[in-house]
């Protein structure tokens, strides 16, 4: 299965990355994400619960390995997600481009093998429901960016990030971003 899509954040690239750096924000924005942990160098482990249609609340353990990193522009993720409802394996290439002074375009392209019950029963629903879930997650992130941009004085619905403006992108930032993308991809699939 191939997935190719893009999403434009209304915020500077640095801001987007900062946001992606904050696991609390992510957990609120992403449905089903229960755990995100650094498991080793360039490796992240997550757990999520998601359900669509006849596949209800399936638990997935997700392993992500990062390769081919070109900070801050692009990286590749090797994805290995397994659960009782099946598995997702494959790789995804993610690009973040500046699309203006206050805009960041995220493009992603994934080649995934989906197996087990989610392939056999969920196939028909993957596209439409998954797409709307992913869209919802991204919109949530984007509105959070808006609330941050709306004023440093306004606390907004979500807590402001603790990190100050980071001059360079650290590895955890990239990994956080990777996990976000993976979960978005999985959300599209589930």
């Amino acid at each position, binding site marked *: *299965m191939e997935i190719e899509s893009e999403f434009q954040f209304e915020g500077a690239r640095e801001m987007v990355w900062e946001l992606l750096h904050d696991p609390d924000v992510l957990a609120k924005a992403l449905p089903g994400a229960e755990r995100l942990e650094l498991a080793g160098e360039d490796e992240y482990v997550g757990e999520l619960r998601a359900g669509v249609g*006849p596949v209800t609340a399936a638990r997935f353990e997700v392993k992500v390995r990062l390769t081919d990193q070109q900070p801050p522009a692009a990286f590749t993720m090797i994805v290995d997600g397994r659960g*009782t409802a*099946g*598995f997702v*394996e494959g790789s995804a290439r993610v690009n973040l481009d500046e699309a203006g002074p206050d805009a960041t375009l995220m493009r992603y392209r994934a080649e995934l*093998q*989906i*197996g*087990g*019950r989610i*392939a*056999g*029963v969920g*196939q*028909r629903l993957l596209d439409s429901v998954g797409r709307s879930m992913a869209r919802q997650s991204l919109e949530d992130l984007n509105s959070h960016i808006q609330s941050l941009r709306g004023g440093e004085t306004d606390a907004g619905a979500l807590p402001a990030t603790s990190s100050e403006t980071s001059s360079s992108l650290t590895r955890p930032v990239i990994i956080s971003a990777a996990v976000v993308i993976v979960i978005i991809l999985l959300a599209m699939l589930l």
Partner: protein
Amino acid sequence: MTTRLFGTDCPRREDPRLLTGQALFVDDVHLEGMLHVAFLRSDYAHARLVNVDVSGALEVDGVVAAYTAADLGEYWQPGPLLVSPPPTIEKLTFRHATQVPLARDKVCHVGEPIAAVVAHSRYQAEDALARIRVDVEPLGAVVDIEAALQPDAPLIHEQFDSNQASHVIQEKGDYDAACARAALTVQRRFRFDRGASAPMENRGVVASWDAKCGELTVWDTTQAPIPIRNGLAHMLGIPESQVRVIAPFIGGGFGPKIMMFYPEEVLLPWISMQLGWPVKWIEDRHESFFATTQERLQIHDAELSLDAEGRILGVKDSFLYDAGAYNPYGLTLPINAQCTLLGPYDVPAYYSEFRAVFTTKPIVTPVRGAGRNPGVFVMERLLDLAARELGMDRTEIRRRNFLPPDAFPHDHEIIYQDFAPLVYDSGNYLPSLEKAAKMIGYDRFLAEDQPRLRAEGRHVGIGIVAYVEGTGIGPYEGARVSIEPSGRVNVATGVGTQGQGHFTSFAQIVAEQLGVELPDVEVITGDTGKFHWGTGTFASRGAVVAGNACHAAAVKVREKVIELAARSLDSSEQEIELAEGSARVKGSPDRALTLGDLATRANPLRGAVTPGTEPGLEATAYFGPERGSTANGVHAMILEVDPETAMVDVQRYVVVHDCGVVINPTIVRGQIVGGVAHGIGGCFYEQLVFDSGGQLLNASFMDYLLPTATDVPNVETDHVETPSPYNPLGIKGAGEAGAIPTGALFAQALEDALQIPGLEVLEMPLSPNRLFELMRDARSDE
């Protein structure tokens, strides 16, 4: 006077029980202390099993046991090769790999069982499956049957050097010479894809080991209870007489339930013996899409050579056959395709070659039609294409090539699935064609209706195709008929029943011989405790082989009755007639004894029986035909297509069928109609779609569409009776016929309805999407 039952339209006696929920199905078996089994199945199409850890499952509440391949010890064995390749075919290579009870080293298709959990409820067992840890190392899936034969394809069975399971060549005459002098040669590639059998009742097994009696009882949705009994006894090391396999009422077989031995069938009895409790497993619908066998992917490169008058000079065909992950059923399906392709036609030269290919997809064994459907599709499509090239009517090209009535028995000079030469016992094809053409109004439709509908902007087409079906093959079946002192007649036969109406048709056969009414005849099928010789219900053979065995046993009992009645009534045997449950002297209605009285006299408590005679009015008989009988038929259809939506509407469907002598027209009609529904499913609704990773993408009835009542038209049927000379009753089989030519018919009618130049339907099944693509491609080529 004698009541005529054989050949009459009496209602199916089993239906009241079936329709009011009184019939016993496997899932209706509830035993004290019964445990439930669930299977962990592979999510991967092809992977090495690194580790399977069931310890987590054992901690789940209610779980009694969990097993992996390692727990089975010596009991872990690959299943038997059910059908060896015909030793009579010279140019044949074959190698087999059969399914195992639980995957041990690797998995070869999605759904292959890896572990079994036993719990107090199925709910608990299913929950525990989620706690089993399986570490796998994925291997490449093998899905495309052409790519499977490439040197770089992942090897499924590592003991072999390729994924090719078999290569067979059968030849008759000199095709190249025929082609050289042909006025026309049509050559195309045809594809027929996989479908499921989709029975109303999935598979299921209940096994109960009684240690005190040393007896194993198994309720199984099998089409072959006797071979299952014999095999289980052998595997478990207990006497055959201590194993009873009961195939109760079964909600549809269609072929996959003839497969032996499914992993669950092997494991449930073993688990019951391990634990000392009865165990049950009922396949759920999702499991069924992987765990039950399927058919029928074949890709044919075929050509037909004809003279200028449209007479067939020869056929050449080379095809690939998808065997799935294992091939326990040998070469039955591709050989059926190879043989049935010849149809009702005189084909002087034939070159046919096939390769059977292992893939990482569920196992392939017969599903209604059993390889014949693609064979008929290829031949009928080639004839349609040739007729078009020659400017000839579709019925005319068939008429010109039919084997004439005096051509029988006709030897096609190749070998059939039963290892015997493909000899058609009898047939008379032209009347079927003419009758079908008349019923559907073929000439009038083409001359008047179609032009008128066209002018209205409607796309309505007609199709008409012919086929034969080899049915009723051996080796044999048996039956025991006995009369009780109550006058009740018992019939027991070994074949199981999956809805074919055996309780009616076998009773008709026996009642006719013994002069009793149907309610007086009790038929028992599929219980090895009642009869334990025979093979099973498959290959459209129940009525032919078991029916003739019932007949033979009834004739023997009739002889006993007449002999005893003549003696008791002080008359001669010639003077005795059997009617209304009595034996009586013709012309003297007072001199009569009921069959019950005679049964009592035949089994006296005191006195002496004549030395050398047997007690009771009972006989067992067997029937094994020398070879199968060849049924045939013609199907015709009127079909409307909406070129905008690519939706189709089958408006009329006519079947003229010759299955020899008909025991019960209603039952034959039921078989035909059910077959047509199955066939229509395989044309436009049912297709198992696998992705390149070997994942089945439509493993539920949400996405795998079955034709519903609104999709299946009222099927108009008529019969032609050409009795088979190979059995005393002159019967031929009818179980699969309805499904066999449907794809070919649908394709022809579609082309006729659309009349888009260049639109050729060379594949089955279609769907609205696929038909839309074909229409678009044909139009863009214009």
